[in-house]
């Protein structure tokens, strides 16, 4: 009797508490979503500005504040000339008229397109300029032509993909060496390798420049490509962490079948490590594509520039043509953005970062 009475009494507040927690999480989730949405909006503003500016005409660049949507004035042909169209209020009636001549005192002559001989002098500020949405997509080919895009793209692709090949080749070898063998000093060498991640690059910059200068490689793409064939600490570390997760049994089976260590690397490790290799390749692409410091130092003549240097110079020369600069910038960020959307999982699930988890 007492037992059956107790049980429902006890569960009631518990259920209420449960419902309380549920509403609490619901509120928490709503707040989270709201903050994330607001932040996402702020993050997207620069992109919207970039795209909208890239398709504006010159007149609109001079407007303050800048219009978000690219517009152009409606025009009408009066006596063989394009004149802007206004919505004019005269004697309490509104009609569409063209502005044909500016007059002192903020006034102008307006005419009715159907009756172009009769002019009306009116205050401009009282009339409404008629506009329509207009995207100047021709800014893109024009900007690319002016900055000699094709040549720059070719150089950038050369640096990016030859460097990527060198990086993948050398880092795979080195990561394999550090993950599968025992040898005296190997651990110390690995720590040495890791410590170079923290080395400020300036401390080796000048003698490296002098070396490439002596070799006659300054103002060629070689200083940007060749060092990639000598591995780098970051990618070696990430690949090694991944190689360590590949079961040793596979290596041993290959060994028993008479495979040399090189064959084991090629036929066992590399195929297993594809996600890691793809990740470091993508990160190398982003690095090489965006790199500015080294191309700036080593590439002097416009024929050898990469996109980053070319874009910077294009801006330095034609800074007033903001629409062209933005069009060129949009083209420059397009490949990384496409790559990002194609390889989203690699970024969002952090395949590459498994190594640094605590």
């Amino acid at each position, binding site marked *: 009797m007492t037992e059956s009475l107790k049980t429902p009494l006890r569960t009631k507040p518990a259920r209420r508490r449960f419902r309380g927690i549920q509403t609490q999480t619901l509120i*928490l989730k709503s707040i989270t979503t709201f903050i994330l949405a607001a932040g996402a909006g702020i993050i997207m503003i620069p992109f919207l500005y970039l795209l909208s500016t890239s398709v504006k005409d010159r007149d609109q660049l001079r407007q303050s504040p800048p219009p978000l949507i690219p517009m152009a004035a409606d025009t009408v042909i009066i006596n063989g000339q394009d004149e802007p169209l206004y919505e004019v209020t005269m004697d309490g009636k509104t009609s569409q008229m063209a502005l044909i001549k500016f007059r002192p005192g903020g006034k102008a002559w307006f005419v009715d397109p159907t009756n172009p001989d009769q002019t009306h002098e009116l205050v401009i500020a009282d009339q409404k300029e008629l506009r329509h949405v207009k995207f100047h997509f021709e800014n893109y080919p024009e900007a690319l032509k002016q900055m000699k895009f094709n040549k720059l793209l070719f150089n950038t692709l050369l640096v990016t993909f030859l460097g990527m090949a060198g990086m993948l080749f050398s880092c795979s070898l080195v990561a394999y*060496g*550090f993950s599968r063998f025992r040898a005296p000093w*190997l651990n110390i060498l690995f720590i040495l390798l890791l410590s170079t991640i923290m080395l400020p*690059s300036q401390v080796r910059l*000048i003698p490296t420049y002098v070396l490439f200068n002596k070799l006659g490689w300054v103002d060629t793409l070689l200083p940007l490509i060749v060092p990639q064939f000598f591995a780098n600490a970051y990618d070696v570390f990430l690949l090694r962490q991944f190689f360590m997760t590949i079961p040793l049994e596979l290596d041993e089976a290959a060994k028993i079948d008479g495979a040399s260590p090189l064959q084991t690397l090629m036929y066992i490790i590399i195929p297993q490590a594809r996600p890691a290799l793809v990740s470091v390749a993508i990160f190398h692409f982003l690095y090489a594509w965006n790199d*500015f410091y080294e191309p700036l130092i080593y590439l002097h003549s416009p024929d050898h520039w990469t996109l*980053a240097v070319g874009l*910077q110079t294009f801006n330095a020369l034609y800074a007033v043509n903001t629409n062209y600069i933005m069009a060129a910038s949009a083209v420059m960020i397009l490949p990384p953005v496409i790559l990002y959307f194609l390889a989203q999982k690699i970024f969002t699930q952090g395949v590459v970062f498994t190594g640094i988890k605590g």
Partner: protein
Amino acid sequence: MVSSPGKRLISLARREALWAYAFIAPWTIGFIIFTIGPMLASLFFSFTDYNIVDSPHWIGITNYVNLFNDDLFWHSLKITFTFAVIALPLGLVFSYLIAVLLNSKIAGINIWRTIYFLPSVIAGVAVALLWARIFDPKFGILNPILANFGIKGPGWFSDPDWALSALVIMSLWGVGGNVIIYLAGLQGVPTDLYDAAKVDGATALQRFWYVTLPMTTPVIFYNLVLGLIGTFQYFTEVYVISGGTGGPARATLFYNLYLYQNAFRYFHMGYASTMAWVLFIIVLCLTLLIFRSSEIWVYYEGQLKSK
């Protein structure tokens, strides 16, 4: 002839070692040619007068004396430190909070993650050009937005007092890279720890403070060290926005930009090498300091088990 097992073992171990050295050879050779060699050479250059055309001429510690009497050196150091002290903690906290939000189980979380990581993949010249225009006091977009809230925006990159703040805002926009790393760390916190804390009656805030935060200190540490080194390498943004001058009125003359000017504009290679070594020592000291302090505030799971 049968070799003794002991000898065979030794030769096997030696063969293994030889394979290892062969595989890591690309890095070892590169380390000598592109790291240790240049490091020692730049140490030597730092004691010379060297303009790359004539051979280096030994002048003892003159470069170091000149450097410590160089107002621009102190100025650029101050700019870099100011930026580091503001942008680094702000960026770390900001990206951590974003990562915590992005780690929650809400609908459409992958879409949010995609948007938040996007800016981090497009660093470089294009981004700097874009922000230079957003900040433009006359034709830019930021000041009109601020005006909507009744704030009169400053001159940003045309005002020496505001140029650094503009760079800080810019850097916050690109914290996505940090967020990715934090998110990986947050996802690595074992769920049973949260369950245990819940059983003990810990509130959400307590769970964050006593479980999440300590468990992710290694990732915070990682982002802090790399962020610090990154600040001293800060270059592209200021070069592009100031056209390589560090303006307005040298307000964005970061250490690395001043070093670049000395090396590749004036070809004072010896002096620039001195700057590089002083930078190296500063970064080394700061890194050691952070590593030392990490014993107090960074928690490694393995530690407790071994104790």
